[in-house]
């Protein structure tokens, strides 16, 4: 799958632009605030129906305009597919595939898979465990459309159980049978989510290790481990044994909502002991592993968007990375950088052709 053409109308800082891409490497170069990342975001929007950075749709419209339109011409399974999206202020957004409007946006997600690597990803390392679970959940739900429903059900049961625990504390009325019911419902859906996460991590970790070793040539020892209370214990037993504690704390203290990914460097937490460059390398390996996983599950190559990728990486790792992504395992790539010469030099060194676009205040020239 690849994106042949992209046209933008009143999208972010673009009044109008039309671009034709190469099937391999495409690079956007320009100064700060020129609109390089906005082009990546437009591609992200067409593939996943939303912006990568900002969840508020109307804020994607060019200042002073009252609508935006995006259109992408993709090639997928030897077919030409035209995806169009338009949004008018105070109206519902429209998503069309080959001129036919989608009834449910969820039907579109997953058809045109994409992986974006951006400086914002650092939150996966430095923020709370929720970000890391979200990363895992996003990866699984792009390939398994029942996973998200299961997760929603689990969260609802969990909320109910927590409300019940609070009510028990407030009113002093404790009905063990009722708590037992929420335990059983949590266990049923929690167990299924756990199995899926475990299966995903089993496939994911070796790919991650491979990418990381290649990228850094084993300069440091890192480890990615999936931690879940359910790995060593049976969920029903956990809930049973922690009933007293849960009643005191008035919330559920065990379950898959406590799952965690632990990131370590030389056995110490990555968040505190990794340098910025090491953290960035780690994130890139994580995202590339997500790419490989999606590719294995879908049977074709997703798009790869690299935003400001050269920042914080040393020359050696940069070259390794570019060698890697321009290899056959990866499909169409989009890169942004402030320095056009740096991009040309790097790709010249590894003799890979690159299509360069110069971005300047909302205009693009190739």
């Amino acid at each position: 799958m690849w994106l042949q053409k992209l046209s933008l109308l009143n999208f972010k800082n673009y009044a109008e632009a039309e671009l034709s891409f190469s099937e391999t490497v495409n690079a956007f170069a320009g100064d700060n605030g020129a609109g390089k990342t906005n082009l990546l975001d437009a591609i992200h929007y067409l593939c996943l129906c939303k912006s990568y950075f900002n969840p508020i749709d109307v804020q994607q419209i060019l200042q002073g305009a009252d609508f935006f339109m995006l259109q992408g011409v993709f090639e997928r399974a030897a077919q030409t597919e035209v995806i169009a999206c338009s949004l008018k202020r105070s109206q519902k957004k429209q998503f069309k595939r080959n001129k036919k409007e989608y009834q449910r946006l969820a039907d579109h997600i997953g058809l045109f898979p994409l992986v974006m690597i951006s400086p914002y990803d650092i939150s996966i390392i430095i923020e709370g465990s929720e970000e890391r679970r979200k990363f895992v959940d996003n990866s699984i739900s792009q390939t398994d459309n029942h996973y998200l429903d299961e997760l929603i059900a689990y969260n609802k049961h969990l909320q109910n159980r927590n409300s019940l625990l609070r009510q028990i504390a407030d009113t002093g009325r404790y009905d063990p049978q009722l708590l037992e019911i929420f335990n059983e419902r949590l266990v049923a859906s929690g167990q299924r989510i756990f199995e899926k996460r475990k299966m995903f991590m089993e496939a994911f970790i070796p790919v991650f290790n491979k990418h990381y070793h290649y990228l850094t040539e084993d300069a440091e020892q890192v480890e990615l481990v999936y931690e879940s209370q359910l790995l060593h214990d049976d969920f029903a037993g956990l809930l049973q044994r922690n009933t007293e504690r849960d009643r005191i704390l008035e919330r559920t203290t065990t379950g898959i909502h406590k799952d965690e990914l632990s990131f370590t460097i030389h056995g110490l937490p990555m968040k505190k002991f990794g340098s910025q460059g090491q953290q960035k390398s780690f994130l890139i390996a994580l995202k590339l592993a997500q790419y490989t996983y999606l590719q294995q599950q879908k049977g074709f190559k997703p798009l790869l968007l690299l935003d400001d990728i050269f920042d914080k990486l040393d020359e050696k790792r940069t070259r390794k990375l570019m060698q890697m992504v321009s290899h056959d395992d990866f499909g169409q790539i989009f890169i942004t950088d402030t320095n056009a010469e740096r991009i040309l030099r790097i790709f010249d060194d590894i003799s890979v052709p690159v299509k360069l676009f110069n971005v300047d205040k909302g205009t693009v020239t190739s």
Partner: protein
Amino acid sequence: MNFSSRLLENAVAEFSKLPGVGQKTALRLVLHLLNQSQEDVEKFSYALTRLRSEIRYCKTCHNISDQQVCEICAAHKRDRSIICIVEDTRDVMAIENTNQYNGLYHVLGGLISPMDGIGPAELTVDSLVERVKNGDVKEVILALSATMEGDTTIFYLYKKLKDMPVQITTIARGIAFGGELEYADEITLGRSIVTRVPYENTMVK
């Protein structure tokens, strides 16, 4: 909204407390009532006052009723060995309209949902257990909504009743009449396949 009369304003405020009624609809209803004869409006408000002060809940099944015991529970022709458990009086009306059921009812008054502050104590569960314990009930039909709260409630009642000498059944869930398979949603269709029934059982006399 600026009202020319305080009385008008009060009436509109009361009407707009009703579900699904906004200020404009409330004003329309109030002005309509003003156009009616005094006698008619008095009849209207008398009906409401009586409704609120004289309505009873059947002491057996908790359905809305005029007497201590509702018509269904008092009827001699009804089969007293079956109890159909429903959420509220609307469900009783819906099942009665089918003309397929001749047993008694038990109205729970809601579904278990701790998130909304509703637990078994807010429902008529204890009285149901008593009914099953005391009477000569042979079968209990759980006719509750196919939602998460409905499932939780069914599960809870099942646990409460399973050790008693009574058969527990639930209403069938599946493809609607006149419905085409290709338009059925996956979960309904999947469940219909899993809980399929022998063809002979589907031939209703």
